[in-house]
């Protein structure tokens, strides 16, 4: 990208020197000595992280790597600096720090990926006649910030701003992105704003009211285009958000974000709030440029700020490798889940709550009421799962006249995400696999998305550099765009 390949060694020092106040803690020496010190720091690439205003764009599309670079910037950038980081991820479902993947995500669908042909077989994997092979892989990610579940793909730009915690404000940077959007949205019927949930929505004029003759009556309706989440540490705080520009997978979003198990799970932690979404209809580079311009207007104060490109070479930084390892570990993705209960008793309320109807579809899809989602008749189950491990399990076959709830003590300690088959788990726990309990095991397989080979979860661990190549720190932005 020529527009940002403007790096020269001479400019490296200029924005830095304008902010000597940042280094008031340096021992008072002669001015020339101090400048020399600063220049030496500049020469180390780490010096970038001490600049008052920093802008980075990522060429990486792996969500685990991007989130780790972001976390690295949060922890390593100068406590008084303000940082903008822009990145685009390959398709992934990102859950909040304290969320439940079994509740929020259709794991079976995520593991199988998005069908390129748009053909899906929603029956449980064990009975599905055709296996959809022509798919776009989707990764499952748990981020370190709070909030709800979002979907990313190549038509979505993630923007994140890192600033001192002392000036943390939930709306300030969402407003910044809104200003950027206002400058580039050409559609006069589309007005972006920050809503009360600190998300960015666009008010669209002329949306046909449902249940009236098409176009006869219209209204202004808000569609969510960007979701916000925050991470606050002792000195630094991070606000990151998505922005749907031209996602080709909007239709699939509902499918990925609706777990068949959600009617049966009572979870602690954070539940996502569903919103109707739409694309803003912009190109990725245009949006990035506009956000950068707004960010500069807010913080650069007329100074020249050089943008930097981060790429896969960051994978050599030890802290980033460690971050990727943490984010890709099943312990983080699954076992960080707050305690939850799965109970077939919750089934009775299915369909009675009008809120259950999906805002992602125009009409409630018939597959919502799928036979396969229903627990088998006469099968009762109650599972308590803490940190991804079964704490308590009670199963019951009501068709058995001598029916008694089976307190499956031997199922205690079973790690849910590692289960390959619930039949096996029951068998190992000495539970007599009656016909009903066998059907129950199959239903549990379906609920937890068990036994589905993963094509989605991108295995970045395979591409991690060997440990010998890890750099301690401060080689971030080793490659200077345009420079040698």
């Amino acid at each position: 990208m020529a527009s940002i390949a403007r790096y020269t060694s001479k400019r490296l020092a200029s924005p830095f020197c304008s902010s000597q106040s940042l280094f008031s803690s340096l021992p008072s020496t002669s001015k020339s000595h101090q400048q020399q010190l600063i220049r030496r720091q500049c020469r180390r690439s780490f010096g970038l992280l001490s600049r008052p205003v920093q802008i980075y764009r990522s060429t990486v599309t792996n969500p685990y790597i991007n989130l780790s670079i972001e976390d690295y910037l949060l922890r390593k950038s100068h406590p008084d600096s303000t940082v903008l980081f822009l990145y685009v991820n390959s398709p992934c479902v990102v859950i909040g720090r304290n969320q439940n993947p079994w509740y929020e995500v259709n794991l079976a669908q995520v593991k199988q990926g998005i069908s390129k042909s748009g053909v899906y077989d929603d029956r449980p994997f064990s009975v599905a006649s055709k296996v959809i092979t022509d798919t776009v892989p989707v990764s499952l990610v748990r981020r370190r910030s709070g909030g709800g579940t979002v979907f990313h793909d190549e038509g979505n730009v993630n923007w994140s701003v890192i600033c001192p915690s002392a000036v943390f404000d939930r709306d300030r940077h969402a407003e910044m992105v809104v200003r950027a959007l206002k400058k580039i949205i050409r559609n006069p019927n589309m007005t972006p704003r920050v809503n009360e949930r600190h998300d960015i929505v666009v008010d669209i004029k002329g949306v046909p009211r449902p249940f009236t003759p098409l176009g006869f009556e219209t209204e202004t309706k808000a569609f969510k285009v960007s979701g916000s989440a925050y991470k606050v540490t002792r000195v630094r705080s991070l606000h990151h958000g998505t922005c749907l520009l031209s996602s080709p997978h909007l239709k699939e979003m509902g499918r990925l974000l609706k777990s068949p198990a959600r009617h049966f799970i009572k979870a602690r932690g954070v539940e996502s709030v569903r919103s109707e979404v739409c694309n803003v209809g912009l190109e990725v580079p245009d949006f990035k440029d506009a956000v950068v311009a707004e960010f500069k207007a807010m913080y650069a104060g007329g100074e020249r700020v050089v943008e930097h490109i981060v790429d896969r070479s960051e994978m050599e930084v030890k802290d980033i490798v460690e971050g990727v390892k943490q984010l890709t570990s099943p312990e983080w993705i699954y076992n960080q889940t707050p305690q939850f209960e799965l109970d077939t008793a919750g089934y009775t309320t299915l369909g009675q709550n009008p809120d259950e109807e999906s805002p992602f579809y125009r009409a409630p899809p018939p597959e919502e009421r799928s036979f396969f989602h229903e627990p088998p008749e006469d099968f009762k189950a109650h599972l308590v799962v803490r940190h991804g491990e079964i704490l308590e399990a009670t199963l019951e076959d009501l068709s058995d006249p001598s029916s008694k709830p089976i307190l499956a003590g031997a199922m205690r300690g079973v790690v849910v995400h590692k289960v390959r088959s619930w039949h096996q788990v029951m068998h190992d726990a000495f539970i007599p696999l009656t016909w009903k309990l066998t059907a129950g095991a199959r239903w549990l397989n379906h609920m937890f998305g068990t036994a589905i080979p993963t094509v989605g979860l991108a295995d970045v661990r395979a591409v991690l550099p060997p440990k010998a190549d890890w750099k301690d720190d401060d080689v971030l932005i080793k490659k200077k765009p345009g420079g040698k």
Partner: protein
Amino acid sequence: MASIARCLRSARPSGLSALVKSSVSRGVVSRPFSVTATNELRKYTKEHEWIDLSADKKTGVIGISEYAAKALGDVVFVELPTEGKKVQAGDAIGAVESVKSAADINAPIACKITHINLALEDKPGTINQVPEDDSHGGGWIAKVSVDEQGIKDLDNLMDSEAYDEFTATEGDH
């Protein structure tokens, strides 16, 4: 027990001592109002954690301040520390999530976590109601044991007066 003494003291003016006593005997102290810190040994960090040290200076209780609880907004989840973990002052021992933000809770002093307030996992809203209550049913986060380093770290913390001043100036931002 310092906490009981504090209950009594705060309850006396409103003539609620009988109620407080009865609830103490039930083992549940429920107070409809939040208690302001009257414990002289309660110290605060700039990051809005508090620590109460027992009279023998061997154990303590950690929580987040009322000011912080108000600033956070509705707490929806509390990630509790791990029991048995030894930490230095400033180390993240847990996190609270409110309004989409995950905020670290840091150890005010060097200490070892001995008990965690599991009730917060089920009722995170307790943090908003009684953040500075270290009794059963209160919004405290962890009980800790303290060694010499911890007592040294205590000198860097603020007493409640200094903390009130600090929060008053911080509000100007």
